[in-house]
C-alpha cells in the first residue's frame, strides 16, 4: 500500500498533463456546441489532421536540418501555426460542404452527416499517408526531449508546453468570445440565430468563423499531441475525441472554463483509475486495459445525475 501511495504525486501529475490535452480538444467541441447545439463529430478528425500537419512540418525541418540548428521554440511554433492553419481550413470546408446545406433539418440529419465526415476524414488520412509515406503509423521528430525532476515527480518539458498552451488557449478564447465584437456576434448567434440575423449579423459568416476558430484550436491540440507523444496515426482522434467530448459535457457543454475543468478532472480520474484498478482488485483487472472505459463511465454518470455539467446552466428544452 505504501508503495502504491508513494507514486500518487506522479500519477496526479500525469493525469493533469493528459487532462490539459483533453481540455484543449474539449474547447473545440464546446465552442461549436455553444453556437450550434450540435456535436461536431468531425472535430476529432480535424485534431488528427492537425497532428499530421505538425508532423509534416517537423519532418520538413528535420530534412532541412533546421531542427538541430534552430531554437526548439521556433520549430514548435512553426508546427503549431501550420497545424492551426490546415485544421482551420478543414473545419471551414467541412462546415461549408457537409453542415451548411443541412441547417434547419431535423437534428439527426447533420449528426449523421458529421459522423460520415469523421469516417471519411479518418480513412482519407490513412490513404494519404499510406500512399505518400508507405505507412500510416509515423514517428514524429523529437523536440524538447528533456525533463525536470521535482522531488519524486518527473515532468517532461513537452508536457509543460501542453499545460502552458492549454491555459493560453482557454484565456485567449474566453477573451475572444467575451470581449471582441466578433465574439459578441457569436454569442448573439448562439442565443437566437434569427434575431441575430435581424440585428445585422451575418449569421453564416459567424458560424463559418466558429468552425474556423474551433478547427484552429483542434489543429493546435493535434500538433501539441504530435510533439508530446512523438507518434501519429489516423486513429488518434477517435478515442481522444470521445474523451474530450466527455470532458466538455462534464464541465457543462457550451462553457469554455467548464471544458478545461472537465478535461483536467477527467484526466486525473483516468490516471487514478488506470493506476489503482489493478491493486484494488488484487491484480484481477488490468487497469491499463480498461483505461478507455473510465471516461465512458464518467459520461454516463454525468448525463444521468447532472446533465448540465459542473459549470453549465440548466436549460429547459424549447417546445
Amino acid at each position: 500500500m505504501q508503495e502504491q501511495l508513494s507514486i500518487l504525486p506522479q500519477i496526479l501529475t500525469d493525469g493533469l498533463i493528459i487532462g490539459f490535452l483533453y481540455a484543449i480538444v474539449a474547447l473545440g467541441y464546446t465552442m461549436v456546441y455553444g453556437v450550434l447545439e450540435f456535436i461536431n463529430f468531425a472535430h476529432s478528425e480535424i485534431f488528427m489532421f492537425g497532428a499530421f500537419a505538425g508532423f509534416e512540418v517537423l519532418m520538413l525541418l528535420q530534412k532541412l536540418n533546421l531542427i538541430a540548428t534552430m531554437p526548439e521554440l521556433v520549430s514548435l511554433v512553426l508546427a503549431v501555426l501550420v497545424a492551426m492553419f490546415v485544421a482551420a481550413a478543414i473545419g471551414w470546408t467541412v462546415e461549408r460542404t457537409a453542415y451548411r446545406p443541412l441547417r434547419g433539418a431535423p437534428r439527426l440529419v447533420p449528426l449523421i452527416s458529421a459522423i460520415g465526415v469523421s469516417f471519411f476524414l479518418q480513412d482519407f488520412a490513412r490513404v494519404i499517408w499510406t500512399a505518400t509515406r508507405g505507412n500510416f503509423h509515423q514517428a514524429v521528430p523529437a523536440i524538447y526531449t528533456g525533463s525536470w525532476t521535482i522531488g519524486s515527480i518527473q515532468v517532461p518539458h513537452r508536457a509543460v508546453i501542453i499545460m502552458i498552451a492549454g491555459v493560453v488557449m482557454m484565456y485567449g478564447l474566453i477573451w475572444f468570445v467575451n470581449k471582441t465584437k466578433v465574439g459578441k456576434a457569436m454569442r448573439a448567434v448562439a442565443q437566437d440565430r434569427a434575431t441575430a440575423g435581424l440585428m445585422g449579423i451575418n449569421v453564416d459568416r459567424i458560424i463559418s468563423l466558429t468552425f474556423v476558430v474551433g478547427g484552429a484550436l483542434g489543429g493546435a491540440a493535434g500538433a501539441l499531441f504530435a510533439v508530446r507523444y512523438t507518434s501519429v496515426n489516423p486513429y488518434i482522434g477517435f478515442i481522444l475525441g470521445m474523451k474530450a467530448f466527455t470532458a466538455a459535457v462534464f464541465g457543462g457543454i457550451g462553457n469554455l472554463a467548464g471544458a478545461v475543468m472537465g478535461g483536467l478532472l477527467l484526466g486525473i480520474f483516468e490516471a487514478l483509475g488506470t493506476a489503482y484498478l489493478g491493486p484494488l482488485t488484487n491484480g484481477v483487472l488490468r487497469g491499463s486495459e480498461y483505461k478507455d472505459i473510465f471516461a465512458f463511465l464518467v459520461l454516463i454518470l454525468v448525463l444521468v445525475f447532472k446533465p448540465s455539467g459542473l459549470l453549465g446552466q440548466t436549460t429547459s428544452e424549447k417546445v
Partner: protein
Amino acid sequence: MKALFRPIGAALTKAIAWFTARLHNEQTALQTATAFVAIAVIVQVLIPSSGLSILFSLLSVLGATNARIKPLHKWILAGVPLLVALPYAGTHNPSLAPLMVQMFIYIGLALGLNLVVGFAGLLDLGYIAFFAGGAYVYAIFASTQAAKFSPWFAEHAPQGLGGWWFWAALPLALAVAALLGLALGLPVLRMRGDYLAIVTLGFGEVIQVISRNLDTPINITGGAPGIAPINPPSLGPISLGSSTAIYYLGLLFTVLVGIAMVRLEQSRVGRAWAAMREDDIAAKAMGVPLIKMKLLAFATGASFSGAMGMLFAVKQQFINPDTFGFMESIGILAMIILGGLGSIRGVIVGAAAVTLLRFQFLRDISDYFANWGLPPAIDVTKYQPLLFGLILIFMMIYKQEGLVPAARPTVDINALEGANPPVSGKGASVAR
C-alpha cells in the same frame, strides 16, 4: 456532368414508376412479377458469379412480395430465386455462398437497427455490441472455450456442445442481447439525440474492450485472439455445417426478422414508436408510455442483432473482438441511411447494396487497378470507411429519405384547407 445524368435519372425514375404502377395494378401485377422473377432467375443462372445478378434477384423478390397478388403467389414467386436460384449460384461459385450469408446477416442487422433508428428515432451507434453478445453466447459453449473456465465442461464436453446447442442457444442469445439492450437503454432514457449517439458509441467500445479483456481472471471470451473453431449447428443427425445449409439457415433467420418487422411496424407498438419519433412530447400527451416504448425498442432491436450474431459465429466458425468494432456499427448505419430510414424495403436494398459494394465492388476495383501497377500500399479493398463516410454525407445532403423511401400516409394540407400558402409535406421525413 449534370446534363448527362439528368436524362438518365429521369428515364430511370419513369421506368421504375411504370413498373411499380404495373405491380400495383391487379390486372397486370401477376404477369409483371412473374416476368421480373423469371428474368432474374435466368440472369442468375447465366451469370451466377456476379454480385449484380444477386442484387437483381433480391430486387425481383422485393418486387414480387410488394405486388398486388395473392399471398400464395407471392410466396411461390419469392421462393424460386431465394430457395433455388441463389443457392444454385452459391454451389457454382464457392466464394458466393458466404457472401450471400453475409448479406443475409447484414439485412437482418440493418432491419434491427432500422427498428431502433428508423421506427423509434433513437440513434444507436453501438449496435454491433448486441451482435457480439449473440455471437459469444453461441461460440463460447460451441467450442473448446467453455472447458477453459468450467470444470464441468472440461470433463463432459471438452470440445464444446454439439449442434443441438444452436437451437438451445437461440432463446438465450435473444435474451442476453435484449438484456444488453436494456442495460444500454436504462441510463439513456432521458437523453436527446446527440447525447444518445455518443453514449451508445461509448457502449459499443466498452463491450469491445470487455470482450477483449475477459480472458482474465477467468478466461470467458478468449481475449484478443478470440474463439476458434466453432462447432456447426445440426438438425437431429444432420449437420448444418455446409455452406448451402448455412445459406438456408441465414435465409430462414432473415425472413423471420423481416416478417417480424412488417408485423411490428403495423402493430400498436410500432405506431407508438412512430409517434415517439415524430414528437415525443405530443406522443406522451396522447398517452404513449415513452419509457416503456424506448426500452422495448432497444431490447427488441438488440435481440434481432443477437440472433444475427449467432448466425455470424456459425458462418465464420471464428470470432474475435476486432470483428465487432465501431466501423461495423457505422456500416449498418450507412445501409439503412442509403436504403431509407424507416423503410423496410429500402433497408433490405441498402443492406444488400452496401454488402456488395464492400465485399465485391471494392475488390473488383482493386483487381482492375492492380493491372495498372499501382503501389500495393493503396489497397482499395480497405476503403470501406471512406465508402461509408461518403454514403452518409451524400445521402444526408442529397436524399435524406433514402433510395427507397418509406411509404408513410400523408395528408395534403392544401386540399383540406383550400389552397392557402403551400405547406411542404414530404412523404418521408427523417426522425428527429
